[in-house]
């Protein structure tokens, strides 16, 4: 791999990918796979499916790099989050109802088994309640809390104004607070 490529920013790498550079693609994949996999996982709650979605998203980018038009999107990640979210929604439409993985490891293994069990139960209930939220509220929560995107970035990904995003988050939190009353 060409020395110094990892210092290139996403836009420079994408320009090289549009010229057919496998090396640039490799750098971009290494840089971002984890975060897009994590986002997919928030939707599908299954490792294999989340990996497939992340892989599909990157391979679509490789196949048709012309879809990325820097003049239309401010940031590569914002644009690509939208692609991953759309793939997740497509998957959910085909695979409803959502099945949460019961075999996941405990959140914090240092705690006593009893505490850990309560924590796991809390998390499972939370995941079920999040899955039951309207699509856009769920999307807003995933992007802002799980992925740590700023409200402005999340608004761009979902395609709404900042005020609308804040309202989505507020409603989602109000619903969750009500439904999770027993655990709060």
């Amino acid at each position, binding site marked *: 791999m060409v020395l110094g490529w990892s210092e290139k920013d996403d836009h420079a790498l994408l320009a090289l990918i549009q010229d057919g550079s496998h090396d640039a693609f490799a750098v971009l994949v290494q840089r971002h796979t984890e975060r897009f*996999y994590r986002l997919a996982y928030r939707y599908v709650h299954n490792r294999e499916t989340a*990996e497939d979605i992340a*892989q599909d998203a*990157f*391979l679509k980018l490789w*196949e048709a790099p012309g879809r990325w038009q820097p003049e239309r999107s401010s940031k590569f990640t914002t644009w690509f989050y939208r692609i991953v979210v759309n793939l997740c929604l497509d998957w959910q439409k085909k695979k409803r109802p959502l099945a949460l993985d019961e075999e996941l490891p405990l959140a914090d293994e240092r705690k006593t088994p009893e505490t850990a069990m309560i924590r796991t139960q809390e*998390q499972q209930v939370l*995941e079920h309640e999040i899955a039951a939220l309207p699509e856009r509220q769920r999307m807003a929560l995933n992007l802002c809390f799980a992925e740590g995107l700023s409200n402005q970035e999340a608004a761009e990904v979902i395609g709404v104004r900042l005020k609308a995003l804040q309202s989505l988050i507020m409603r989602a939190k109000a619903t969750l607070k009500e439904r*999770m009353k027993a655990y709060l």
Partner: protein
Amino acid sequence: MSNTRDQREQKLEAMLQARRFEPASPDLTERIIRKAQHIPQNQTISLSQWVRGLFAEFHLPRPAYVLVSTLIFGFVVGFTIPQYTITADDTDSISVQSFLYADEDVL
């Protein structure tokens, strides 16, 4: 009362930020890179390339192109050149001639 609400809100936010998460397979990145090696890129093509591709798709022999082109050319020429129309004078002359030659011999 509002203090309790704040505490609930804080706990909810903490729970949202600490949602469980199963890490991806360590070879996921490599898998994606390896798969891309075997996938050709779709380049944006110009209209002339598209037309060429279309003809290549149908595998028509060259004489067929010539025939189709000639037919199209013929139709275009046929429709663009003004048609010969019979005027009133022409009709009269035809009538007179046919009258004169009606019995084979000029009257």
